[in-house]
């Protein structure tokens, strides 16, 4: 799927005052808070606020956003900018910080390493790829923004390749995502080097996608003769 929903959210105040309490009613374990910003100040402001929330277990910093103070180039496309965000956020937080990388780069490894060097506790990858489709009848891009974020099963091989590359270059844990839609994908992602796996677009087609994957895990573990999932992390290297 291709989306251009941007970063629709009610803002940090409402997330803390309304969304977190709502979540608490149906989910008791800690959650991962995904933080975006358009300047270093925005990142640090939001991370500092969310760090104080007991419900939050991990802070995931989305650096695929354009930096308004630097011609709109995304923080995540430059190792220096990525390192700068990491360093600034680490200074104001006590919780584990995972940096979520953009795949729209020539060298994902150098960016992951730059984040690790500044103290990132983990890496999440990948965010959406840039994509587009054209309405052949109207001869116009289908998405109003012309281009959008491409995700879902079609991007799985790209995501898998990047997780594999980053695993070889860093020591911190990786959360793998991008196109995961069935339990076999979870397995493959872990073999590439992911310690945990996230699912995005597949939930939008089947809201029970994650539940189904979790339920089917034991069956697949049996199929591939695995006793403990930890044993397969990076197993393909």
């Amino acid at each position, binding site marked *: 799927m291709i989306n251009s*929903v941007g970063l*629709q959210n009610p803002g940090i105040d409402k997330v803390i005052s309304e969304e977190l309490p709502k979540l608490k009613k149906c989910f008791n374990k800690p959650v991962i808070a995904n933080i975006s910003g358009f300047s270093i100040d925005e990142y640090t402001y939001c991370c500092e606020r969310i760090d104080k929330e007991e419900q939050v277990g991990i802070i995931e910093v989305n650096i695929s956003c354009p930096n308004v103070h630097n011609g709109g180039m995304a923080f995540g496309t430059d190792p220096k900018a990525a390192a700068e965000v990491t360093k600034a956020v680490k200074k104001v937080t006590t919780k584990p910080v995972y940096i979520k990388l953009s795949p729209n780069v020539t060298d994902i490894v150098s960016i992951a390493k730059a984040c690790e060097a500044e103290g990132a506790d983990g890496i999440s990858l990948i965010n959406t790829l840039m994509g587009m489709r054209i309405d052949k009848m109207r001869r116009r891009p289908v998405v109003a923004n012309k281009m959008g974020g491409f995700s879902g099963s079609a991007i799985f091989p790209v995501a898998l390749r990047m997780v594999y590359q980053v695993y070889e270059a860093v020591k911190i844990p990786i959360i793998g995502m991008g196109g995961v839609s069935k339990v076999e994908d979870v397995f493959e992602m872990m073999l590439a080097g992911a310690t945990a796996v996230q699912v995005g*677009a597949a939930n939008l*087609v089947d809201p029970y996608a994650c539940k189904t994957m979790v339920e089917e895990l034991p069956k697949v573990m049996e199929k591939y003769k695995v006793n403990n999932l930890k044993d397969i992390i990076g197993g393909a290297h």
Partner: protein
Amino acid sequence: MKTGIYTVTENKPLTKGVYRMVLEGDTSHITASGQFVNIKLEGRFLRRPISVYDYSESAVTIIYKVVGDGTEQMSNMPVGTKLDVMTGLGNGYDLSKSGDKPLLIGGGVGVPPMYNLCKRLIAEGKKPTMIMGFNTKDEIFCLEEFSALCPTVVTTVDGSFGIKGFVTDAMKDIDYTYYYTCGPEPMLKAINAAAAAQGQLSFEERMGCGFGACMGCSCKTKYGNKRICKDGPVLESEEVIW
């Protein structure tokens, strides 16, 4: 909201390009007229949303127009095909505001959701009138079905059947307490401007998930941002920002 497997028991053309499909399966999650179902098609990532035309305890009927690859694929499905369908999506129309003489207005494939609504209003003792708008005579469908329920007026843009012009041309001569409508956005806008009463409009916005998770259908209303799929597709005329 519920996902289930449904069996196609009928799939036949009503006009060139518009089909009626009957899907047999659990309909217990459909709670209001104007709700929609979301259909998973083999080989396509996102589901395709289609309004409920009518439903019984064991089957839901939809009417769809072939406009692209997904609906084309649906039109070729033989009876017996199994489909993964989500039902009970959207808020649907609120009948409580209708008054005695509600006006129902459907444009093109906006006509179908009016059918179950019309039946319900009649069951509540209301006296609805239906206006259906099409471009031309060959596109008309469901005229007999609506005529059997209530006074039904047809408009065609080219004048080949019924009143020549748009649905708003037919509205002028009808006395109504409230209106319910579904159709292309320019039509909804024209109705809102022409209407002599308040009403409810169903927006068939492009959708991602259809159940409130992706924000792909979000729009601004006078009461803040709303997701067309979950807080809609039906909005009240007074809250819409045109």
